[in-house]
């Protein structure tokens, strides 16, 4: 059954529309605006739910002249992702009503949160590369606004900018990759940006890409984009920084949805890139991130930072799973995407409750809280054991499938490929460690100096509980989740047929052994947690110089220094320097354009000039020379006037009546303006600086040469008669435009769009002058 496009569009557009009116509603009803968010998220969730079971691609034309179509595709993966985003969205809005109580700027906060939800739904359903890119970048922008929620804190601004630079930079890689893919699709004879078609004919497109050497470049670009978005090593450092955002944002964007966009894209494109290169790049990236993320999570002291690194590690697990070639890969990736969203969002909500009620997020300052926060403790137990991958919790099933995929990769490729299962097990040992550490916030000893902790309000406890119950249900009866959406999602990401099994092991197989080793090592080493953490701390400090975060800071500082240097040279506050650089670069670009496009000098043959025109132009040249030698401003302005009027006469002689009129009128106006400012001009500037004269002379010569070249290249031999365009305008001016003045008909009718643009330019110029001159004192006085 085909999905209904209007229902899908409504589900995507509704959050955006709501975002537009949110600030207004906030002004009316205050922080109760969060219920609007709840209602919108629930509506979108309901709308998408009506489409469950449908399959296929639907489209409406968007920009017909550019061949860009708003294509939406519904399949298992899209449904899984969009249901997670909107479903968790409902819980997050409920939670935020408690967590964000009495906080400022809630209008902006909820607006960005709603816009984010719309964008993520757009990403989920996009079946067009351009649309995908657009929504992809929109999620980054919303994340930027939300991370920078505390606009008055430097750390918050720094983190927001970092997240923006990394994820939007990654988005640009996606754009490049999309262009390469569309080239391949075009060569394979398909509509270029149609992702759905690319995926149905993935083999021919992949062949074309390979034949033209675009396969690996586009694969790498897409992977870099996904790595930036999904916090893969070495681009993972922005994610822990993003934890300065309020906890609802961390739970929603930076664990459950936005960071999964990269994983989601990899799952989407998996059928296209399926092959050994894919495994080499993506699976390696995934397992390395798994390990590094888990190690960093162990040494984290801040509970949100711990969860952030753990998120990076689990994203690595999903990326690695999608990277493996067997059908287990697609299954493990899709299933873990689902499980992780539930338990990690739940854990973040738990962390938010801890921070909100206990007033600290430091791991060592919290402990033994199960008596005071019993409900939260239950959620934490279920969710963190699921995160650890202990049976019979949900995380165990999906990790088991991932182990199977890793083992399978080692078995088929042999050699170094055995490192995949080994690294995966090692990373999982540390996962068990930090999961238990998180659990010990509730079970361990209560620090003496911890103040009494009160229970969380229902608006915060209930969403966490719902997620905890969700994890529990999937743990007890994984078949429900599989049947409902996960199996379909895996099918969308797989090339092979898919048959997901989840359940407790009944016999000893390699993956079961891997799980056993993982859990045994993890449990055995937990008593030595503090020792392990100290050792890792030492390594971390020693490797300080190569931390991606430090590299990022250095690169940014270098870029800043370069821009400042350039700024001092080009933008030194003297208007003649500005003019010099602007004109010089404009002329060089123009001449370079001619050199590339034409190559060779224009011919002068067939050019003839009547005596009258020669005379007029001669006077103009004399006037031009005279301007440079005048002593006073008045004579200078008047001589310049002569030059202008000569040009007008030249237009009359060449029968360009409208041009001549315009030139005359503008010349008159200029003369008047000069008269107005003349009194204010100093009579004497300084002695002639010959160096500057030479420099300006060179510029004048370059500008003159460029203008001459332009005229010669564009001028036509008159004996050829009129061009087709000119003839068309003349033929159609009276019958089509109703006017005998062809110039005016062109301006107001044939090319009215240009005129519209020009009038907007006039308005912008007027506004700029107004703002510049009337408001320039503002910065200095206030």
């Amino acid at each position, binding site marked *: 059954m085909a999905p209904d496009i209007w229902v899908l569009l409504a589900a995507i557009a509704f959050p955006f529309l709501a975002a537009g009116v949110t600030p207004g509603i906030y002004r009316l009803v205050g922080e109760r605006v969060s219920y609007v968010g709840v209602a919108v998220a629930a509506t979108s969730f309901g709308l998408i739910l009506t489409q469950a079971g449908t399959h296929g691609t639907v489209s409406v034309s968007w920009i017909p002249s550019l061949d860009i179509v708003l294509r939406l595709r519904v399949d298992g993966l899209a449904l899984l992702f969009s249901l997670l985003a909107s479903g968790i969205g409902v819980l997050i809005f409920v939670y935020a009503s408690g967590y964000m109580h009495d906080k400022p700027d809630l209008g902006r906060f909820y607006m960005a949160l709603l816009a984010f939800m719309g964008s993520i739904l757009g990403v989920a359903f996009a079946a067009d590369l351009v649309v995908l890119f657009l929504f992809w970048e929109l999620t980054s922008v919303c994340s930027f606004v939300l991370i920078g929620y505390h606009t008055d804190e430097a750390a918050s601004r720094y983190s927001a900018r970092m997240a923006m630079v990394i994820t939007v930079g990654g988005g640009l890689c996606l754009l490049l990759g999309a262009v390469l893919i569309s080239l391949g699709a075009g060569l394979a004879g398909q509509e270029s940006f149609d992702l759905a078609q690319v995926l149905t004919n993935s083999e021919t497109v992949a062949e074309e890409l390979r034949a033209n050497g675009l396969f690996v470049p586009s694969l790498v670009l897409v992977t870099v984009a996904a790595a930036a978005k999904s916090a893969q090593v070495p681009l993972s450092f922005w994610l822990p920084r993003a934890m300065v955002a309020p906890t609802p944002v961390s739970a929603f964007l930076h664990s459950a949805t936005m960071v999964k966009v990269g994983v989601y894209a990899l799952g989407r494109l998996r059928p296209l890139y399926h092959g050994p290169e894919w495994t080499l790049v993506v699976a390696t990236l995934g397992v390395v991130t798994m390990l590094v993320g888990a190690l960093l999570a162990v040494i984290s002291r801040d509970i949100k930072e711990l969860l952030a690194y753990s998120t990076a590690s689990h994203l690595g697990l999903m990326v690695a799973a999608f990277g493996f070639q067997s059908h287990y890969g697609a299954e493990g990736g899709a299933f873990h995407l689902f499980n992780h969203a539930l338990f990690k969002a739940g854990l973040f909500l738990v962390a938010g409750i801890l921070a909100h009620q206990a007033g600290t997020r430091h791991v060592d300052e919290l402990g033994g809280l199960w008596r005071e926060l019993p409900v939260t403790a239950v959620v934490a137990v279920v969710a963190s054991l699921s995160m650890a991958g202990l049976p019979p919790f949900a995380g165990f099933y999906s990790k088991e499938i991932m182990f199977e995929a890793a083992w399978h990769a080692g078995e088929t490729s042999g050699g170094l490929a055995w490192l995949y299962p080994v690294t995966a097990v090692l990373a999982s040992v540390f996962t068990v460690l930090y999961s238990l550490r998180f659990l010990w916030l509730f079970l361990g000893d209560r620090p003496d100096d911890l103040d009494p902790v009160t229970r969380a309000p229902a608006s915060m406890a209930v969403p966490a509980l719902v997620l905890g119950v969700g994890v529990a249900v999937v743990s007890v009866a994984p078949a429900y989740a599989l049947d409902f959406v996960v199996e379909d999602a895996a099918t969308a990401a797989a090339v092979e047929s898919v048959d997901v099994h989840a359940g407790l092991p009944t016999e000893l197989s390699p993956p079961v052994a891997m799980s056993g080793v993982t859990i045994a090592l993890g449990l055995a080493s937990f008593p030595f947690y503090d020792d392990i953490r100290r050792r890792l701390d030492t390594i971390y400090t020693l490797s300080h110089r190569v931390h991606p975060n430090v590299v990022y800071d250095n690169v940014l500082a270098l870029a800043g220094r370069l821009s400042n240097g350039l700024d001092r040279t080009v933008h030194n506050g003297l208007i003649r320097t500005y003019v010099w650089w602007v004109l010089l670069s404009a002329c060089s670009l123009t001449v370079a354009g001619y050199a590339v496009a034409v190559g060779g000098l224009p011919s002068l043959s067939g050019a003839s000039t009547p005596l009258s025109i020669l005379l007029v132009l001669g006077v103009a040249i004399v006037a031009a020379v005279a301007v440079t030698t005048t002593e006073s401003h008045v004579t200078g302005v008047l001589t310049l006037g002569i030059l202008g009027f000569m040009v007008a006469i030249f237009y009359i002689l060449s029968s360009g009546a409208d041009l001549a*009129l*315009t030139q005359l009128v503008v010349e008159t106006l200029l003369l008047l303006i000069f008269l107005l400012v003349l009194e204010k001009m100093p009579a004497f500037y300084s002695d002639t600086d010959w160096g500057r004269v030479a420099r300006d002379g060179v510029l004048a010569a370059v500008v003159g040469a460029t203008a001459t070249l332009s005229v010669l290249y564009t001028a036509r031999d008159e004996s050829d008669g009129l061009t087709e365009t000119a003839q068309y305008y003349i033929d159609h001016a009276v019958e089509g435009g*109703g006017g005998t003045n062809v110039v*005016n008909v062109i301006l*107001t009718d044939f090319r009215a769009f240009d005129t519209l643009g020009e009038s907007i330019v006039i308005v912008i110029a*007027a506004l700029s*002058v107004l703002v510049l001159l009337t408001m320039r004192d503002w910065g200095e006085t206030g």
Partner: protein
Amino acid sequence: MTTVIMRTTARIVVPIVLVVAFSLFLQGHNLPGGGFIGGVLTVAAFALVYVAYNLDYLESGVLGREVEREASIGQHRSVAAYRRLFMLGLVVILLSAFAGVVFGQPVLSQSFVHLHLPLFGDIELASALVFDIGIFCVVVGGLLTVFSVVSAE
């Protein structure tokens, strides 16, 4: 610049310039002229007044109103009027651009009708004239804003 010669000339020339500007604007569709040329010429007429007299002359001398001293030129009454003028112009342009959409035509399509009036004979009414009025307003409002703000410096 405010010499007697200048003022006397301006008194005689400005009305003529304005009439010429208006006729250039009206005849634009069939003869040389149009919204832009008419607009610039109108601005030139105003500029002449400014050079010969001053910024407040239009208000005090022509309209006979009291001139209020504002804190900054941006709030000056005539500048505010110019600003409103170019905004109005932009609105007219956009309205005329999208008027065609109502009749199922693409954006910015123009049309015309011929009317036969008893005294004037054949009169052509073109929708392009509305567009041109918009251009005229934008040019006059925009350039005069720039001109009066700069000249107030």
